Protein backbone atom coordinates (compact mmCIF):
# COMPACT_ATOMS: atom_id res chain seq x y z
CA UNK A 1 0.00 0.00 0.00
CA UNK A 2 1.42 3.40 -0.98
CA UNK A 3 1.15 5.71 2.00
CA UNK A 4 1.68 9.45 1.88
CA UNK A 5 2.64 11.23 5.11
CA UNK A 6 2.44 15.04 5.05
CA UNK A 7 3.84 16.93 8.04
CA UNK A 8 3.14 20.62 7.76
CA UNK A 9 3.92 23.79 9.68
CA UNK A 10 6.85 26.10 10.29
CA UNK A 11 10.03 24.79 11.86
CA UNK A 12 10.86 28.22 13.26
CA UNK A 13 7.53 28.91 14.98
CA UNK A 14 7.73 26.84 18.16
CA UNK A 15 5.00 24.22 18.43
CA UNK A 16 4.06 24.71 14.78
CA UNK A 17 7.07 22.50 14.06
CA UNK A 18 5.19 19.44 15.37
CA UNK A 19 3.97 18.12 12.00
CA UNK A 20 7.42 18.45 10.48
CA UNK A 21 9.08 16.79 13.48
CA UNK A 22 6.76 13.77 13.28
CA UNK A 23 7.24 13.46 9.52
CA UNK A 24 11.02 13.68 9.80
CA UNK A 25 11.01 11.06 12.52
CA UNK A 26 8.93 8.70 10.34
CA UNK A 27 11.24 9.34 7.37
CA UNK A 28 14.19 8.12 9.45
CA UNK A 29 12.44 4.88 10.37
CA UNK A 30 12.07 1.73 8.32
CA UNK A 31 9.16 2.68 6.07
CA UNK A 32 8.25 2.68 2.40
CA UNK A 33 5.82 5.55 2.87
CA UNK A 34 6.42 8.75 0.93
CA UNK A 35 7.09 11.43 3.55
CA UNK A 36 6.71 15.13 2.77
CA UNK A 37 7.37 18.16 4.96
CA UNK A 38 5.98 21.51 3.90
CA UNK A 39 5.23 24.94 5.33
CA UNK A 40 1.73 25.03 3.89
CA UNK A 41 -0.58 22.72 2.01
CA UNK A 42 -0.60 23.77 -1.62
CA UNK A 43 -2.76 22.49 -4.50
CA UNK A 44 0.27 20.86 -6.16
CA UNK A 45 0.11 18.18 -3.45
CA UNK A 46 -2.86 16.61 -5.23
CA UNK A 47 -0.31 15.09 -7.62
CA UNK A 48 1.09 13.10 -4.68
CA UNK A 49 -2.35 12.32 -3.25
CA UNK A 50 -3.48 11.03 -6.64
CA UNK A 51 -1.07 8.11 -6.51
CA UNK A 52 -1.44 7.38 -2.78
CA UNK A 53 -3.52 4.55 -1.32
CA UNK A 54 -3.73 6.34 2.03
CA UNK A 55 -2.84 9.81 3.30
CA UNK A 56 -1.94 11.03 6.78
CA UNK A 57 -1.57 14.72 7.59
CA UNK A 58 0.15 15.90 10.80
CA UNK A 59 -0.19 19.41 12.22
CA UNK A 60 -0.27 21.42 15.45
CA UNK A 61 -3.49 22.95 16.76
CA UNK A 62 -4.15 26.35 18.26
CA UNK A 63 -7.40 25.24 19.86
CA UNK A 64 -6.77 21.83 21.42
CA UNK A 65 -5.50 21.82 25.03
CA UNK A 66 -1.70 21.72 25.26
CA UNK A 67 -0.34 18.25 24.57
CA UNK A 68 -3.70 16.71 23.69
CA UNK A 69 -3.56 14.50 20.60
CA UNK A 70 -6.50 14.06 18.26
CA UNK A 71 -6.86 11.85 15.21
CA UNK A 72 -9.55 13.00 12.78
CA UNK A 73 -10.85 10.62 10.15
CA UNK A 74 -11.15 12.75 7.01
CA UNK A 75 -12.89 9.96 5.10
CA UNK A 76 -16.36 11.30 5.72
CA UNK A 77 -15.50 14.95 5.24
CA UNK A 78 -14.24 15.01 1.69
CA UNK A 79 -17.66 15.39 0.11
CA UNK A 80 -18.18 18.85 1.61
CA UNK A 81 -19.40 21.16 -1.08
CA UNK A 82 -17.69 24.26 0.28
CA UNK A 83 -13.95 24.39 0.66
CA UNK A 84 -12.50 25.34 4.00
CA UNK A 85 -12.58 29.09 4.56
CA UNK A 86 -8.80 29.41 4.64
CA UNK A 87 -8.65 28.30 1.05
CA UNK A 88 -11.10 30.88 -0.18
CA UNK A 89 -8.85 33.78 0.71
CA UNK A 90 -5.65 32.62 -0.86
CA UNK A 91 -6.21 29.53 -2.99
CA UNK A 92 -2.69 28.37 -2.22
CA UNK A 93 -2.89 27.66 1.48
CA UNK A 94 -5.29 24.77 1.87
CA UNK A 95 -6.84 22.68 4.60
CA UNK A 96 -6.36 18.89 4.23
CA UNK A 97 -10.08 18.56 3.46
CA UNK A 98 -9.75 21.03 0.62
CA UNK A 99 -6.83 19.13 -0.87
CA UNK A 100 -8.74 15.85 -0.67
CA UNK A 101 -11.75 17.48 -2.28
CA UNK A 102 -9.59 18.95 -5.04
CA UNK A 103 -7.99 15.56 -5.64
CA UNK A 104 -11.40 13.92 -5.88
CA UNK A 105 -12.64 16.49 -8.41
CA UNK A 106 -9.53 16.31 -10.57
CA UNK A 107 -8.48 12.69 -10.23
CA UNK A 108 -11.51 10.81 -8.96
CA UNK A 109 -9.58 9.03 -6.23
CA UNK A 110 -10.59 8.94 -2.57
CA UNK A 111 -7.75 7.51 -0.50
CA UNK A 112 -8.53 6.93 3.19
CA UNK A 113 -7.15 9.91 5.07
CA UNK A 114 -6.48 11.02 8.62
CA UNK A 115 -5.34 14.23 10.26
CA UNK A 116 -3.31 14.00 13.47
CA UNK A 117 -3.14 17.19 15.50
CA UNK A 118 -1.69 18.11 18.86
CA UNK A 119 -2.56 21.12 20.98
CA UNK A 120 0.27 23.67 21.09
CA UNK A 121 0.96 26.67 23.27
CA UNK A 122 3.87 28.61 21.79
CA UNK A 123 3.74 29.62 18.14
CA UNK A 124 6.04 32.64 18.17
CA UNK A 125 9.58 32.58 16.77
CA UNK A 126 11.49 29.61 18.18
CA UNK A 127 13.19 26.50 16.92
CA UNK A 128 12.11 24.62 20.07
CA UNK A 129 8.72 23.05 20.78
CA UNK A 130 7.07 23.06 24.20
CA UNK A 131 8.08 20.03 26.26
CA UNK A 132 4.49 18.73 26.21
CA UNK A 133 4.32 18.96 22.43
CA UNK A 134 7.78 17.50 21.93
CA UNK A 135 6.78 14.52 24.05
CA UNK A 136 3.93 13.82 21.63
CA UNK A 137 6.21 13.45 18.61
CA UNK A 138 7.15 9.87 19.42
CA UNK A 139 3.59 8.99 20.50
CA UNK A 140 2.04 10.18 17.24
CA UNK A 141 4.83 8.67 15.20
CA UNK A 142 4.18 5.26 16.79
CA UNK A 143 0.42 5.58 16.16
CA UNK A 144 1.06 6.39 12.52
CA UNK A 145 3.61 3.61 12.13
CA UNK A 146 1.08 1.15 13.57
CA UNK A 147 -1.56 2.40 11.16
CA UNK A 148 0.58 2.10 8.06
CA UNK A 149 2.27 -1.20 8.94
Amino acid sequence: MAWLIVGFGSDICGDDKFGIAVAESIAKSDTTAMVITTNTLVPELVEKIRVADGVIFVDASLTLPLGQVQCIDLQNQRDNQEPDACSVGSSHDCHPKTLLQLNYILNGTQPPSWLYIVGGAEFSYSEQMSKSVEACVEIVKEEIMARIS
Partner: protein
Amino acid sequence: MTKIITIDPVTRIEGHSKITIHLNDGGEVEDAMFHVTQLRGFEKFAEGRPFHEMPSLMARICGICPVSHLIASSKACDMLMSVRIPPAAVKLRRIINLAQIAQSHALSFFYLSSPDLLLGMDSDPKKRNIIGVAKENPELARRGIHLRALGQEIIELLGGKKIHPGWVVAGGVSHPLTADHRDYILSKLPEAIKIAATTLAWFEEQLERFSEEISVFANFPGLYMSIVGANGALETYDGPLSIVDKGNFVVDRLPAEEYKSIIEESISPHSYLKSPYYKHLGIVQGMYRVGPLARLKIATHCGTPQADEALKKFKKLDLCSAFHYHSARLIEILYAYEMIEQLLKSDDILDSHVRAFAEPNAFEGFGVSEAPRGTLMHHYKIDKNGLITYADLIIATGHNNLAMNRGITQAAKHYIKGDNLTDGILNRVEAVIRTFDPCLSCSTHALGQMALDIQLVGPNGAVLDRVQR
Protein backbone atom coordinates in the same frame (compact mmCIF):
# COMPACT_ATOMS: atom_id res chain seq x y z
CA MET B 1 -21.90 63.77 3.25
CA THR B 2 -18.84 61.88 2.01
CA LYS B 3 -18.80 58.15 2.42
CA ILE B 4 -15.96 55.64 2.52
CA ILE B 5 -16.24 52.06 1.32
CA THR B 6 -13.65 49.74 2.85
CA ILE B 7 -12.55 46.41 1.37
CA ASP B 8 -10.70 44.68 4.19
CA PRO B 9 -8.97 42.33 3.72
CA VAL B 10 -8.14 42.26 0.00
CA THR B 11 -8.35 38.59 -0.97
CA ARG B 12 -6.36 36.37 -3.29
CA ILE B 13 -3.21 38.47 -3.15
CA GLU B 14 0.10 37.82 -1.35
CA GLY B 15 -0.16 39.74 1.90
CA HIS B 16 -2.45 41.85 4.02
CA SER B 17 -4.11 45.05 2.82
CA LYS B 18 -7.30 47.03 2.61
CA ILE B 19 -8.90 49.43 0.15
CA THR B 20 -10.84 52.56 1.07
CA ILE B 21 -13.12 54.21 -1.47
CA HIS B 22 -14.02 57.83 -0.73
CA LEU B 23 -17.32 59.24 -1.96
CA ASN B 24 -18.17 62.95 -2.23
CA ASP B 25 -21.41 64.67 -1.22
CA GLY B 26 -22.97 63.66 -4.51
CA GLY B 27 -22.30 59.99 -3.84
CA GLU B 28 -19.67 59.80 -6.56
CA VAL B 29 -16.25 58.25 -6.06
CA GLU B 30 -13.69 60.93 -5.35
CA ASP B 31 -10.66 58.79 -4.53
CA ALA B 32 -9.59 55.25 -3.70
CA MET B 33 -6.59 54.15 -1.68
CA PHE B 34 -4.74 50.86 -1.39
CA HIS B 35 -3.50 50.52 2.20
CA VAL B 36 -0.74 48.08 3.04
CA THR B 37 -1.09 47.51 6.74
CA GLN B 38 1.88 45.33 7.59
CA LEU B 39 5.49 46.16 8.37
CA ARG B 40 8.61 44.16 9.16
CA GLY B 41 11.61 46.24 8.20
CA PHE B 42 14.29 43.91 6.82
CA GLU B 43 16.41 46.89 5.79
CA LYS B 44 17.07 47.59 9.49
CA PHE B 45 17.51 43.93 10.48
CA ALA B 46 20.30 43.59 7.95
CA GLU B 47 22.49 46.25 9.56
CA GLY B 48 25.47 44.78 11.40
CA ARG B 49 25.28 41.37 9.70
CA PRO B 50 28.16 39.96 7.59
CA PHE B 51 27.49 40.70 3.91
CA HIS B 52 27.74 37.06 2.84
CA GLU B 53 24.70 36.26 5.01
CA MET B 54 22.52 38.62 2.96
CA PRO B 55 21.25 36.20 0.29
CA SER B 56 19.93 33.71 2.84
CA LEU B 57 18.59 36.40 5.16
CA MET B 58 16.87 38.36 2.42
CA ALA B 59 15.28 35.25 0.92
CA ARG B 60 13.30 34.99 4.17
CA ILE B 61 11.40 38.13 3.19
CA CYS B 62 9.03 36.01 1.15
CA GLY B 63 7.88 32.42 0.82
CA ILE B 64 6.51 32.93 -2.70
CA CYS B 65 9.46 34.58 -4.42
CA PRO B 66 12.52 33.91 -2.21
CA VAL B 67 14.56 33.05 -5.30
CA SER B 68 14.17 36.59 -6.62
CA HIS B 69 15.67 37.98 -3.43
CA LEU B 70 18.44 35.38 -3.54
CA ILE B 71 19.36 36.49 -7.04
CA ALA B 72 19.33 40.26 -6.44
CA SER B 73 21.06 39.92 -3.09
CA SER B 74 23.77 37.59 -4.41
CA LYS B 75 24.43 39.95 -7.28
CA ALA B 76 24.88 42.82 -4.81
CA CYS B 77 27.35 40.61 -2.92
CA ASP B 78 29.18 39.74 -6.18
CA MET B 79 29.75 43.46 -6.56
CA LEU B 80 30.96 43.81 -2.96
CA MET B 81 33.53 41.08 -3.69
CA SER B 82 34.25 42.60 -7.13
CA VAL B 83 34.14 39.18 -8.78
CA ARG B 84 32.87 38.00 -12.13
CA ILE B 85 31.05 34.76 -11.50
CA PRO B 86 31.65 31.63 -13.63
CA PRO B 87 29.56 31.37 -16.84
CA ALA B 88 27.88 28.13 -15.74
CA ALA B 89 26.79 29.80 -12.50
CA VAL B 90 25.22 32.65 -14.47
CA LYS B 91 23.21 30.14 -16.51
CA LEU B 92 22.15 28.20 -13.41
CA ARG B 93 21.05 31.39 -11.67
CA ARG B 94 19.08 32.29 -14.79
CA ILE B 95 17.36 28.90 -14.76
CA ILE B 96 16.28 29.05 -11.11
CA ASN B 97 15.03 32.63 -11.60
CA LEU B 98 12.99 31.56 -14.64
CA ALA B 99 11.56 28.60 -12.71
CA GLN B 100 10.58 31.04 -9.99
CA ILE B 101 8.87 33.32 -12.48
CA ALA B 102 6.99 30.39 -14.04
CA GLN B 103 5.72 29.00 -10.73
CA SER B 104 4.76 32.40 -9.35
CA HIS B 105 2.92 33.40 -12.53
CA ALA B 106 1.10 30.05 -12.49
CA LEU B 107 0.03 30.71 -8.91
CA SER B 108 -1.20 34.20 -9.80
CA PHE B 109 -3.05 33.23 -12.96
CA PHE B 110 -4.50 29.83 -12.09
CA TYR B 111 -4.96 29.93 -8.32
CA LEU B 112 -5.68 33.59 -7.62
CA SER B 113 -7.18 35.13 -10.76
CA SER B 114 -8.68 32.29 -12.79
CA PRO B 115 -11.72 32.08 -10.47
CA ASP B 116 -12.70 35.56 -11.71
CA LEU B 117 -11.71 34.85 -15.30
CA LEU B 118 -13.44 31.50 -15.57
CA LEU B 119 -16.44 31.81 -13.26
CA GLY B 120 -17.03 35.53 -13.76
CA MET B 121 -16.58 38.63 -11.60
CA ASP B 122 -20.18 38.37 -10.40
CA SER B 123 -20.14 34.68 -9.54
CA ASP B 124 -20.81 33.38 -6.04
CA PRO B 125 -17.83 34.44 -3.90
CA LYS B 126 -17.95 31.06 -2.13
CA LYS B 127 -17.14 29.41 -5.44
CA ARG B 128 -14.49 31.88 -6.60
CA ASN B 129 -11.54 29.69 -5.63
CA ILE B 130 -9.46 26.82 -6.95
CA ILE B 131 -12.17 24.30 -6.03
CA GLY B 132 -14.71 26.26 -8.07
CA VAL B 133 -12.29 26.34 -10.99
CA ALA B 134 -11.66 22.60 -10.72
CA LYS B 135 -15.39 21.88 -10.78
CA GLU B 136 -16.06 24.17 -13.74
CA ASN B 137 -13.00 23.38 -15.83
CA PRO B 138 -10.90 20.52 -14.37
CA GLU B 139 -8.44 20.71 -17.24
CA LEU B 140 -7.64 24.34 -16.50
CA ALA B 141 -7.03 23.51 -12.84
CA ARG B 142 -4.79 20.57 -13.82
CA ARG B 143 -2.77 22.83 -16.10
CA GLY B 144 -2.23 25.34 -13.33
CA ILE B 145 -1.17 22.68 -10.89
CA HIS B 146 1.19 21.15 -13.44
CA LEU B 147 2.85 24.44 -14.43
CA ARG B 148 3.34 25.55 -10.84
CA ALA B 149 4.52 22.14 -9.66
CA LEU B 150 7.21 21.95 -12.35
CA GLY B 151 8.56 25.40 -11.49
CA GLN B 152 8.71 24.42 -7.83
CA GLU B 153 10.32 21.09 -8.69
CA ILE B 154 13.06 22.75 -10.74
CA ILE B 155 13.77 25.10 -7.84
CA GLU B 156 13.98 22.11 -5.49
CA LEU B 157 16.23 20.09 -7.80
CA LEU B 158 18.64 22.98 -8.21
CA GLY B 159 18.36 24.66 -4.84
CA GLY B 160 17.71 21.73 -2.52
CA LYS B 161 14.24 22.86 -1.44
CA LYS B 162 11.21 24.66 -2.85
CA ILE B 163 11.10 27.51 -0.36
CA HIS B 164 14.15 29.44 0.81
CA PRO B 165 16.79 27.41 -1.02
CA GLY B 166 20.31 28.43 0.01
CA TRP B 167 21.97 27.43 -3.25
CA VAL B 168 22.44 30.87 -4.79
CA VAL B 169 25.35 32.44 -2.93
CA ALA B 170 27.74 35.35 -3.18
CA GLY B 171 30.08 34.48 -6.05
CA GLY B 172 27.82 32.03 -7.88
CA VAL B 173 25.97 28.92 -6.73
CA SER B 174 27.03 26.41 -4.10
CA HIS B 175 27.19 23.30 -6.29
CA PRO B 176 26.93 22.37 -9.96
CA LEU B 177 24.03 20.78 -11.78
CA THR B 178 24.12 17.01 -12.20
CA ALA B 179 23.51 15.30 -15.52
CA ASP B 180 20.63 13.33 -14.00
CA HIS B 181 18.85 16.48 -12.88
CA ARG B 182 19.46 18.19 -16.22
CA ASP B 183 18.05 15.23 -18.13
CA TYR B 184 15.07 14.91 -15.80
CA ILE B 185 14.14 18.58 -16.16
CA LEU B 186 14.60 18.43 -19.93
CA SER B 187 12.23 15.46 -20.08
CA LYS B 188 9.50 17.50 -18.34
CA LEU B 189 9.73 20.69 -20.36
CA PRO B 190 7.97 19.76 -23.63
CA GLU B 191 4.71 19.03 -21.83
CA ALA B 192 4.92 22.24 -19.80
CA ILE B 193 5.57 24.28 -22.94
CA LYS B 194 2.59 22.66 -24.61
CA ILE B 195 0.34 23.33 -21.61
CA ALA B 196 1.44 26.98 -21.40
CA ALA B 197 0.79 27.50 -25.12
CA THR B 198 -2.63 25.81 -24.92
CA THR B 199 -3.67 27.94 -21.95
CA LEU B 200 -2.52 31.11 -23.68
CA ALA B 201 -4.60 30.23 -26.75
CA TRP B 202 -7.60 29.56 -24.50
CA PHE B 203 -7.19 32.87 -22.67
CA GLU B 204 -6.87 34.86 -25.90
CA GLU B 205 -10.36 33.62 -26.76
CA GLN B 206 -11.70 34.83 -23.40
CA LEU B 207 -10.54 38.44 -23.71
CA GLU B 208 -13.62 39.60 -25.57
CA ARG B 209 -15.78 38.76 -22.52
CA PHE B 210 -13.77 41.25 -20.47
CA SER B 211 -13.87 44.30 -22.73
CA GLU B 212 -15.41 46.46 -20.00
CA GLU B 213 -12.82 45.38 -17.41
CA ILE B 214 -10.04 45.95 -19.93
CA SER B 215 -11.27 49.50 -20.47
CA VAL B 216 -11.24 50.49 -16.78
CA PHE B 217 -8.71 48.24 -15.04
CA ALA B 218 -5.89 50.75 -14.55
CA ASN B 219 -6.24 51.70 -18.21
CA PHE B 220 -4.31 54.95 -18.61
CA PRO B 221 -1.09 56.03 -20.26
CA GLY B 222 2.05 56.03 -18.17
CA LEU B 223 5.59 54.81 -17.91
CA TYR B 224 6.89 51.22 -17.89
CA MET B 225 10.22 50.06 -16.51
CA SER B 226 12.29 46.88 -16.71
CA ILE B 227 15.79 45.69 -17.29
CA VAL B 228 16.50 44.85 -20.93
CA GLY B 229 18.72 42.34 -22.65
CA ALA B 230 21.00 42.56 -25.64
CA ASN B 231 19.30 43.88 -28.78
CA GLY B 232 16.17 44.70 -26.79
CA ALA B 233 15.37 41.10 -25.83
CA LEU B 234 13.23 40.14 -22.84
CA GLU B 235 15.60 39.80 -19.88
CA THR B 236 15.04 38.61 -16.32
CA TYR B 237 18.51 38.18 -14.81
CA ASP B 238 20.73 41.12 -15.64
CA GLY B 239 20.88 44.24 -17.75
CA PRO B 240 20.49 47.99 -17.83
CA LEU B 241 17.27 49.78 -16.90
CA SER B 242 14.95 51.23 -19.48
CA ILE B 243 11.76 53.25 -19.10
CA VAL B 244 9.31 53.79 -21.96
CA ASP B 245 6.13 55.83 -22.34
CA LYS B 246 3.70 55.26 -25.20
CA GLY B 247 6.42 54.18 -27.56
CA ASN B 248 9.53 56.17 -26.80
CA PHE B 249 12.41 55.53 -24.45
CA VAL B 250 12.37 57.97 -21.55
CA VAL B 251 15.38 56.19 -20.06
CA ASP B 252 17.42 54.06 -22.44
CA ARG B 253 19.76 51.42 -20.99
CA LEU B 254 20.85 53.17 -17.81
CA PRO B 255 23.31 51.11 -15.71
CA ALA B 256 20.99 49.69 -13.06
CA GLU B 257 23.22 50.70 -10.15
CA GLU B 258 22.50 54.32 -11.11
CA TYR B 259 18.82 53.86 -10.22
CA LYS B 260 18.90 56.74 -7.74
CA SER B 261 19.49 59.15 -10.59
CA ILE B 262 16.01 58.39 -11.94
CA ILE B 263 13.95 57.02 -9.03
CA GLU B 264 12.67 58.86 -5.98
CA GLU B 265 10.63 57.17 -3.24
CA SER B 266 7.72 58.92 -1.54
CA ILE B 267 5.94 57.93 1.65
CA SER B 268 2.21 58.28 2.21
CA PRO B 269 0.43 58.38 5.57
CA HIS B 270 -2.10 55.69 4.56
CA SER B 271 0.29 52.82 3.78
CA TYR B 272 3.54 51.17 4.82
CA LEU B 273 4.26 50.57 1.13
CA LYS B 274 6.55 53.22 -0.34
CA SER B 275 5.77 54.82 -3.71
CA PRO B 276 8.71 55.11 -6.09
CA TYR B 277 8.36 57.34 -9.16
CA TYR B 278 10.45 58.63 -12.05
CA LYS B 279 11.79 61.72 -10.38
CA HIS B 280 12.34 63.87 -13.45
CA LEU B 281 8.58 63.95 -14.09
CA GLY B 282 7.42 64.25 -10.47
CA ILE B 283 5.11 61.97 -8.50
CA VAL B 284 2.03 62.39 -10.74
CA GLN B 285 3.51 62.17 -14.22
CA GLY B 286 6.36 59.98 -13.03
CA MET B 287 4.14 57.02 -12.06
CA TYR B 288 5.39 53.86 -13.73
CA ARG B 289 4.58 50.16 -13.87
CA VAL B 290 6.85 47.14 -13.70
CA GLY B 291 6.32 43.39 -14.08
CA PRO B 292 5.33 41.18 -16.99
CA LEU B 293 3.26 43.85 -18.75
CA ALA B 294 6.14 46.34 -18.61
CA ARG B 295 8.74 43.76 -19.59
CA LEU B 296 6.79 42.69 -22.66
CA LYS B 297 5.95 46.27 -23.58
CA ILE B 298 9.64 47.18 -23.55
CA ALA B 299 11.07 43.98 -25.07
CA THR B 300 11.30 43.79 -28.85
CA HIS B 301 11.47 39.99 -28.76
CA CYS B 302 11.71 37.11 -26.30
CA GLY B 303 14.37 34.96 -27.92
CA THR B 304 12.37 31.72 -27.84
CA PRO B 305 10.20 30.53 -30.73
CA GLN B 306 6.70 30.22 -29.28
CA ALA B 307 7.01 33.17 -26.91
CA ASP B 308 8.18 35.32 -29.83
CA GLU B 309 5.05 34.45 -31.78
CA ALA B 310 2.89 35.16 -28.74
CA LEU B 311 4.61 38.50 -28.19
CA LYS B 312 3.73 39.64 -31.72
CA LYS B 313 0.03 39.11 -30.97
CA PHE B 314 0.38 40.65 -27.53
CA LYS B 315 1.82 43.88 -28.94
CA LYS B 316 -1.48 44.43 -30.77
CA LEU B 317 -3.48 44.66 -27.51
CA ASP B 318 -4.34 47.87 -25.68
CA LEU B 319 -1.33 47.67 -23.42
CA CYS B 320 -2.38 50.64 -21.28
CA SER B 321 -4.75 48.28 -19.43
CA ALA B 322 -3.48 46.39 -16.41
CA PHE B 323 -5.88 43.59 -17.35
CA HIS B 324 -3.27 42.45 -19.85
CA TYR B 325 -0.89 41.54 -17.03
CA HIS B 326 -2.75 38.19 -17.17
CA SER B 327 -1.82 37.54 -20.81
CA ALA B 328 1.71 38.74 -20.14
CA ARG B 329 2.09 36.19 -17.34
CA LEU B 330 1.05 33.34 -19.59
CA ILE B 331 3.51 34.45 -22.27
CA GLU B 332 6.27 34.64 -19.68
CA ILE B 333 5.48 31.12 -18.42
CA LEU B 334 5.86 29.93 -22.00
CA TYR B 335 9.08 31.93 -22.37
CA ALA B 336 10.48 30.69 -19.05
CA TYR B 337 10.12 27.01 -19.88
CA GLU B 338 11.40 27.50 -23.43
CA MET B 339 14.41 29.47 -22.18
CA ILE B 340 15.17 26.93 -19.45
CA GLU B 341 15.28 24.29 -22.17
CA GLN B 342 17.74 26.39 -24.19
CA LEU B 343 19.95 27.02 -21.18
CA LEU B 344 19.98 23.36 -20.10
CA LYS B 345 21.24 22.43 -23.57
CA SER B 346 24.27 24.73 -23.21
CA ASP B 347 27.61 22.96 -23.55
CA ASP B 348 28.93 24.24 -20.22
CA ILE B 349 25.80 23.79 -18.10
CA LEU B 350 27.34 20.89 -16.13
CA ASP B 351 30.65 22.70 -15.56
CA SER B 352 31.92 22.06 -12.03
CA HIS B 353 33.33 25.60 -11.68
CA VAL B 354 30.30 27.49 -10.38
CA ARG B 355 31.58 29.78 -7.64
CA ALA B 356 34.11 32.58 -7.28
CA PHE B 357 35.61 33.21 -3.85
CA ALA B 358 36.88 36.54 -2.57
CA GLU B 359 36.99 38.82 0.43
CA PRO B 360 35.07 42.09 0.17
CA ASN B 361 36.81 44.43 -2.23
CA ALA B 362 34.28 47.27 -2.43
CA PHE B 363 32.25 49.13 0.16
CA GLU B 364 29.09 49.32 -1.92
CA GLY B 365 27.20 46.67 -3.89
CA PHE B 366 24.06 46.66 -5.99
CA GLY B 367 22.06 43.82 -7.50
CA VAL B 368 19.09 43.92 -9.83
CA SER B 369 16.92 41.21 -11.34
CA GLU B 370 13.43 40.82 -12.68
CA ALA B 371 11.23 39.14 -10.07
CA PRO B 372 7.86 37.74 -11.19
CA ARG B 373 6.21 41.03 -10.24
CA GLY B 374 8.88 43.31 -11.67
CA THR B 375 12.23 44.92 -11.15
CA LEU B 376 13.88 44.04 -7.84
CA MET B 377 16.79 46.04 -6.45
CA HIS B 378 19.09 45.29 -3.51
CA HIS B 379 21.63 47.93 -2.53
CA TYR B 380 24.11 47.38 0.33
CA LYS B 381 26.99 49.25 1.94
CA ILE B 382 29.52 47.57 4.22
CA ASP B 383 32.29 48.66 6.59
CA LYS B 384 35.91 47.49 6.46
CA ASN B 385 34.96 44.29 8.28
CA GLY B 386 32.35 43.34 5.71
CA LEU B 387 29.42 44.17 8.01
CA ILE B 388 26.31 45.75 6.52
CA THR B 389 25.92 49.43 7.38
CA TYR B 390 23.11 50.24 4.93
CA ALA B 391 20.51 48.25 3.00
CA ASP B 392 17.96 49.64 0.58
CA LEU B 393 15.50 47.33 -1.14
CA ILE B 394 13.18 48.52 -3.88
CA ILE B 395 10.65 45.82 -4.52
CA ALA B 396 8.52 45.21 -7.60
CA THR B 397 5.22 45.74 -5.80
CA GLY B 398 6.46 49.09 -4.51
CA HIS B 399 7.22 50.27 -8.04
CA ASN B 400 3.58 49.56 -8.92
CA ASN B 401 2.07 51.26 -5.88
CA LEU B 402 1.09 54.55 -7.53
CA ALA B 403 -0.39 52.76 -10.54
CA MET B 404 -2.37 50.40 -8.29
CA ASN B 405 -3.86 53.35 -6.37
CA ARG B 406 -4.77 55.15 -9.56
CA GLY B 407 -6.11 51.92 -11.02
CA ILE B 408 -8.54 51.21 -8.20
CA THR B 409 -9.70 54.84 -8.31
CA GLN B 410 -10.48 54.48 -12.01
CA ALA B 411 -12.36 51.22 -11.49
CA ALA B 412 -14.23 52.51 -8.45
CA LYS B 413 -15.34 55.63 -10.34
CA HIS B 414 -16.61 53.47 -13.17
CA TYR B 415 -18.45 50.83 -11.17
CA ILE B 416 -19.63 52.51 -7.97
CA LYS B 417 -22.66 54.74 -8.35
CA GLY B 418 -24.09 56.01 -5.06
CA ASP B 419 -24.61 53.48 -2.32
CA ASN B 420 -25.50 50.58 -4.56
CA LEU B 421 -22.68 48.21 -3.65
CA THR B 422 -22.65 44.62 -4.82
CA ASP B 423 -20.09 41.91 -4.27
CA GLY B 424 -19.39 41.88 -7.98
CA ILE B 425 -18.47 45.57 -7.93
CA LEU B 426 -16.19 45.19 -4.95
CA ASN B 427 -14.63 42.11 -6.52
CA ARG B 428 -13.79 44.13 -9.61
CA VAL B 429 -12.01 46.72 -7.48
CA GLU B 430 -10.05 43.90 -5.84
CA ALA B 431 -9.42 42.35 -9.23
CA VAL B 432 -7.62 45.50 -10.36
CA ILE B 433 -5.13 44.92 -7.55
CA ARG B 434 -4.89 41.23 -8.48
CA THR B 435 -3.86 42.07 -12.04
CA PHE B 436 -0.68 43.56 -10.58
CA ASP B 437 -0.24 40.43 -8.39
CA PRO B 438 1.23 42.42 -5.51
CA CYS B 439 3.41 40.64 -2.99
CA LEU B 440 3.01 42.63 0.17
CA SER B 441 5.25 40.39 2.24
CA CYS B 442 8.05 41.40 -0.11
CA SER B 443 7.22 45.02 -0.54
CA THR B 444 6.98 45.84 3.13
CA HIS B 445 9.29 42.95 3.95
CA ALA B 446 6.52 41.78 6.23
CA LEU B 447 5.01 38.48 7.32
CA GLY B 448 2.02 37.97 5.08
CA GLN B 449 -1.45 36.65 5.63
CA MET B 450 -4.07 36.75 2.97
CA ALA B 451 -6.85 39.24 3.52
CA LEU B 452 -9.04 42.15 2.20
CA ASP B 453 -11.08 45.00 3.70
CA ILE B 454 -13.10 47.67 1.78
CA GLN B 455 -14.41 50.76 3.64
CA LEU B 456 -16.91 53.39 2.52
CA VAL B 457 -15.85 56.68 4.11
CA GLY B 458 -18.02 59.79 4.44
CA PRO B 459 -16.87 63.40 3.89
CA ASN B 460 -16.31 63.79 7.62
CA GLY B 461 -14.12 60.70 7.74
CA ALA B 462 -16.69 58.44 9.36
CA VAL B 463 -16.77 54.84 8.15
CA LEU B 464 -20.26 54.39 6.75
CA ASP B 465 -20.00 50.91 5.34
CA ARG B 466 -17.47 48.14 5.45
CA VAL B 467 -17.04 44.77 3.77
CA GLN B 468 -14.54 42.26 5.12
CA ARG B 469 -13.59 38.82 3.94
